[in-house]
Every structure is written in structure tokens, then in C-alpha cells.
């Protein structure tokens, strides 16, 4: 493994070991294969799957893989700005792209009836209701980040490999739950109103922005000032950019849902509607 950690003289722990990278990458590789297999089985049942969704899934997986393993993950272990780039990819962009790929819809199509029913029962279960509630998902997501960057946890993450794995898994899972709690691409049995989701989204976006500026002014332990400044700004504007897409889709769904009946526009909007399960 190439050792560049001591050039900057600011590293707070050991190198990022290979097994940590592999452990974090495996679930994503598995998810890629699973999705591909589901597309295959769905086609076999004469139910083709849109190509652009496959592209979205592949791009999402690629973002996550880049963030958890390889050169960016190595750099992120030593440089806070790179860490933040990885965080944006793993916690925001990958979840968004993967949610837009509608995996649950695909699995429900591809699975045999019994198993599809089991999956649908799982989606309807109360734990899934709790975890996909906008407020709970926002707290898991943004609250987790507050704990990571305002306590010694960030520094400890560099010294403890188990902590590293746990935090990175959490960042992705919380990001995914957050995304699917705000925009309904897949069948969502536990639905919440637009106002509730909008208000929560604004609060979460604010929590993210406030934390970015807080990091700018108060670098986490072990992070040099210049890196905290550029990392904080990257978090602020990068978060804005990705949340813009979520806000846009949420508003678009509202726009379609309130289309006046018997209007030409109403019929025009239909081709864009999300696929029914």
C-alpha cells in the first residue's frame, strides 16, 4: 500500500486497510449483481425494464464504490476535503441515483409471487414505516453527521477499523432511507403528505447547511483549518446541488398529483408518471 499519509503531517491514525475497503465494497457489488439478475428475470416474464433505470443503478453503485474503496477512499482517510467528497458520493449522490433506479419495483416484478408478497409485507411492516418516516430518516441522516463531526468520533473513526465500517455503512443507509422517505419512486405503503415532507426536507437541508458552516468555523479534532474550510464549503454547496434534485422531484410529484381533471395538461403529464408497481 502506498504510504502518503505522513507527507501532510496531519493524519490521525493508521492507513485504511484493504479488508476494510473490500468489506464495504462487497454489499454494493452484490447489489449490482442482484439488480442485473432481477432485470434478467423480469425480462423473462415479458416485463421489460427501462434502460435508464439500469444506468441510474450502475452510476449509483459506482459512486458508492469510489467512495468506499480505491484511491479516493485512501485520500479521504487523510484529507478532510476528500473525505467530504466521499461523503457526498456515498451519503447523497449514490442513494439518490439508486432510489431513482426503483429497485423495489424491479424486485417485485422479478420475484416469484410468494417471495414478492414477502417483500411487499416487509415494505408494509412497522419497522419499515418507522425507518422511512421523513423525521426519523432525517434524524438518522443529519443527526448522525452532527455526532460524527462535532464529537471525537471523527478522529476515532481513523483509528478504529470497525468504527470506520460502521460509520460508512450508516452514512449510506441513512442517506438512502432519507431519499426514499422524501420522494416516492418505488411503491411506498407508508405515505406522508407533501407539506410534512417539504417541511422536514427544509429542516434537514438546514441542519446540513448549518453543520457545514459550523465545520468551517470549528474544525473537527485532527482536521487542519484549511481543510475544514474547503470541506465545509464542499459539503454546503454539494449538499445544495443534490438536494435540489430531491426538491425538484418532490415538487414535480405534487404538480402531477394536483393536475386538474379533464384538462389537456393532465393527459400530457401521464407519460412521465412513475411506473406503477
Amino acid at each position, binding site marked *: 500500500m502506498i504510504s502518503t499519509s505522513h507527507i501532510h503531517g496531519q493524519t490521525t491514525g493508521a492507513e485504511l486497510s484493504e479488508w476494510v475497503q473490500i468489506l464495504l465494497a462487497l454489499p454494493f457489488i452484490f447489489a449490482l449483481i442482484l439488480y442485473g439478475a432481477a432485470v434478467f428475470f423480469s425480462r423473462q416474464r415479458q416485463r421489460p425494464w427501462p434502460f435508464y433505470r439500469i444506468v441510474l443503478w450502475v452510476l449509483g453503485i459506482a459512486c458508492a464504490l469510489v467512495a468506499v474503496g480505491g484511491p479516493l477512499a485512501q485520500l479521504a482517510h487523510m484529507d478532510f476535503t476528500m473525505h467530504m467528497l466521499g461523503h457526498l458520493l456515498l451519503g447523497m449522490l449514490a442513494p439518490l441515483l439508486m432510489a431513482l433506479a426503483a429497485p423495489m419495483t424491479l424486485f417485485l416484478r422479478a420475484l416469484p409471487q410468494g417471495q414478492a408478497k414477502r417483500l411487499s409485507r416487509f415494505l408494509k411492516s412497522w419497522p419499515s414505516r418507522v425507518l422511512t418516516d421523513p423525521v426519523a430518516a432525517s434524524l438518522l441522516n443529519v443527526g448522525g453527521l452532527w455526532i460524527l463531526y462535532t464529537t471525537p468520533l471523527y478522529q476515532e473513526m481513523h483509528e478504529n477499523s470497525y468504527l470506520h465500517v460502521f460509520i460508512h455503512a450508516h452514512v449510506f443507509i441513512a442517506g438512502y432511507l432519507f431519499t426514499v422517505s422524501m420522494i416516492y419512486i418505488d411503491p411506498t405503503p407508508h405515505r406522508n403528505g407533501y407539506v410534512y415532507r417539504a417541511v422536514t426536507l427544509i429542516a434537514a437541508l438546514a441542519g446540513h447547511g448549518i453543520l457545514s458552516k459550523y465545520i468551517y468555523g470549528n474544525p473537527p479534532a485532527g482536521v487542519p483549518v484549511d481543510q475544514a474550510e474547503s470541506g465545509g464549503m464542499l459539503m454546503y454547496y454539494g449538499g445544495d446541488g443534490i438536494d435540489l434534485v430531491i*426538491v425538484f422531484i418532490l415538487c414535480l410529484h405534487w404538480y402531477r398529483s394536483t393536475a386538474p381533471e379533464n384538462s389537456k395538461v393532465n393527459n400530457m403529464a401521464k407519460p412521465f408518471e412513475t411506473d406503477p408497481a
Partner: protein
Amino acid sequence: MTANTYQSSIISNQFSYSTRNLWSGILFGVGLAAFLDETLFHQLLHWHHFYDKSTTDAGLVSDGLFHAFSWFATIGSLFLFADLRRRNALWLTRWWSGVLLGAGAFQLYDGTIQHKVMRIHQIRYVDNLIIYDLVWNITAVVMILAGAFLLVWTKKKMKKHKGEQRD
């Protein structure tokens, strides 16, 4: 449908969606003011600073909430605008009254509470800051007054129309 009845159906649409016209305008105004603040003063002129050491905690929270809200408002208001258009209910005078009110109110809040009380950052880091503050806040007040004038004007128009229908 004759031209006349078509016209009157648009007017009745505008009146029944008068609140949505106003809110679409207000949200767009807030979003526009925040957007100009960000692009013009932060990014292009570099007058505003991303973070000022003298920012209070309340300032940080207020700035974050307003930033998030205005971000959402910009997009949401445009969808409301599109919704009004497809319903043939867009009333531009009413909409503009909202834009001026929203942009003015946001700018006044930014220029007084956020810049001065919470000290998130100053308009420009120069000696004669007072001139910048005055121009900033007077512009805000002028926008609010213009918006209020249009708002009253549209209200009067609705009242007059109701009176005519009763006669």
C-alpha cells in the same frame, strides 16, 4: 365560448386562486432575493463572506434555515406558477405583489436582523459600511411598499368585481 365569457372565466379563475397567486409570488420573491444574494454578493462580487467569525449561534441557525427555505421556495414557487398557468388562473399583478413582498421582506430581515443583530456577515467589508446598509435596507422597504400597493390594488379589484356581480 365567446371571447367575452372566456375572459370572464379567466378572471373568476384568478380570483378563486388569488391566494395561490400571492403565495407563489412571495415564495419566488424570497427565493429570488436569496439567489441574487448568493450569486451576486457571495460568488461574483465576493463582498459577502461564507462565514464570519463574529456570527452568533442564532445567526448560524437563522442563516441555515433561510437558505434551506429559500432553496425550496425557488423551486416550489415555480411549480405553483406552472400550476396556475395550466388552470388559466395566473394573475400577474397579484403574483408580482407577492414577489415584491417576499423579496423585500427577506432582504430587510437579512439586512437588519441577520447582518446587524446576528452578525452572520456584513454586506461589504469596507469603512463606509453604513452607506451599503442604507441602500440595502431602503431598497428592501421600497420593495415591500410597492408590493403592498399592488396587493391592496388587487384586493380592491376583487371587491369591486364582487359588488358588480351582486348588482
